[in-house]
């Protein structure tokens, strides 16, 4: 008997150990990437000068007198992400309320499948459709010479972040205890009042994390954006050709050498810090709301 138990214990220990090692693989990857980015990204910032790098408005990495200012990329990434959130969050939020509270079972199944499908489409396909359909459409609707630019990128990003916003919000809304809603209805509130006054506030932390996911996906997207944004390092403006932090790295990495390559790593480091900052800020607000 005793040997059987200890054998079982040993097996348990081995399994736990294996899980721990597998878990550490993820942590190890994060550490490796972080350390590598910092080591690779710092030298160029030192050589160019921090203020010249972050607040310089001209990027001409291959000109006779190169200039490495990434302010256009930073602003474009911020504007692009903000625009995608402004369009994507309301659409995603109301879709989620509808799917979780109002829709009949059949509508819910069909719509839910459609949302899952949207999540599974590779970003290069978003880019291709954007390039062949959206860019010419923007050109015709607004009567401008060329449709590629910040607006096209914002629309593509808004569609790309929809699935994550909808799915996470639906899960959060469905997790609200039914008693809350029943109590509200029993007190005489209409169903709509109940959804927005009771269910949504109860699910706010889940909905907020849906927005975080959306921001994260939007700011980190490169492929789809590269195909519709025109890719010229201008200061951002709605109908101008722009370059994002991600596409700045992606479009020059294959050819770059020397200081230019180091500067691209510095851009990646800035992007990394941005994503950390966004996550930290939103986590902070989430925690404070939950405690307050």
């Amino acid at each position, binding site marked *: 008997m005793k040997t059987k138990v200890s054998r079982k214990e040993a097996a348990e220990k081995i399994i736990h150990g294996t899980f721990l090692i597998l878990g550490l693989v993820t942590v190890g990857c994060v550490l490796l990437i972080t350390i590598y980015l910092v080591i690779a990204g710092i030298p160029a910032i030192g050589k160019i000068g921090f203020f010249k790098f972050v607040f310089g408005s001209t990027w001409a990495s291959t000109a006779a007198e190169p200039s490495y200012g990434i302010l256009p990329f930073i602003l474009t990434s911020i504007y692009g992400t903000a625009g995608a959130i402004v369009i994507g969050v309301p659409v995603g939020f109301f879709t989620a309320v509808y799917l979780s509270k109002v829709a009949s079972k059949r509508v819910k199944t069909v719509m839910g499948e459609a949302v899952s499908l949207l999540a599974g489409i590779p970003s290069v396909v978003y880019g291709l459709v954007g390039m062949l359909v959206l860019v010419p459409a923007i050109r015709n609707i607004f009567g401008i010479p060329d449709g*590629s630019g910040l607006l096209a990128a914002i629309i593509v990003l808004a569609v790309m972040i929809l699935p994550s916003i909808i799915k996470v919000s639906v899960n959060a809304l469905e997790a609200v205890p039914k008693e809350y809603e029943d109590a509200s209805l029993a007190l005489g509130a209409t169903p709509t009042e109940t959804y927005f006054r009771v269910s949504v506030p109860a699910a706010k932390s889940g909905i907020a994390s849906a927005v975080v996911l959306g921001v994260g996906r939007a700011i980190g997207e490169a492929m789809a954006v590269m*195909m519709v944004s025109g*890719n010229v390092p201008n200061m951002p403006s709605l109908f101008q050709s722009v370059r994002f932090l991600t596409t700045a790295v992606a479009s020059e990495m294959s050819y770059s050498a020397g200081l230019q390559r180091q500067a691209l790593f510095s851009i990646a480091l800035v992007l990394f810090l941005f994503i950390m900052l966004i996550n930290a800020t939103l986590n902070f607000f989430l925690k404070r709301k939950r405690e307050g």
Partner: protein
Amino acid sequence: MKKVVICVCAAMMAVMMLAGCGRSASKGSVTTDGSTSMQAVIGVLGEAFTAKNEGVNFTYNPTGSGSGITAVSNGICDIGLSSRALKDEEIASGLTATVLAYDGIAIIVNPNNPVENLTIDELSAIYTGEITNWSAVGGSDSAIVLIGREAESGTRDGFESITNTVDGCKYRQELTSTGDVITTVSQNPDAIGYASLASVKDSVKVIAVDGVIPTEQSVKDGSYAIQRPFILVTKTDVILNDTAQKFFDYAISNEASELILSAGAVPAN
């Protein structure tokens, strides 16, 4: 990728220098140095040459035309590679240029664009933003949309140096591949772009430059202006070692023409 190639080549060169000439002479070696635009052409030639001559050591150091010319005149490599013609003073300093191939850069517009021909001056005025409307060059009254390539592209370098617009182009879009340029131009009736002649498809219209349509023939006889030669640079009064001479002869032979065509250039021989 290029960085890797450079590192490998540098490492190979370092090893060869350390090992001395004795070892490399036994199997034979060819060292080439220069133009990055010639990477595709010299790559297929080098591969085919080493496949035919087992044990031969072939190296290519992609440093740019200028340093390739310097390297061969200093005796650092056997054959220099240049994607521009040699200047008079370079020829006077004792270098010989042998044209290996020509690289034509086609100017493409949307098939619906009525413009058939542009001069080099018009092209540089368009790309620097002096001419912004198609009506100024015989087209419809609409703004010109300039499509170009990313900063390090060999095609962009060739186009800008021939039209005298280096660092002066006011691009609307900077795309990262020839295919993207062709797709974008085929989608936008007001767009103009440039692409390697070998890659151009029917979805766009190739226009004449100074009255000449780019074809294999017009690139070869030099009547089409936006082209550059791919040149093998050697020292006039120094005889190449046997292996390097063998490679040189192979590269300009009829046998190699097919390979050069497959790499997207027009063979000179």
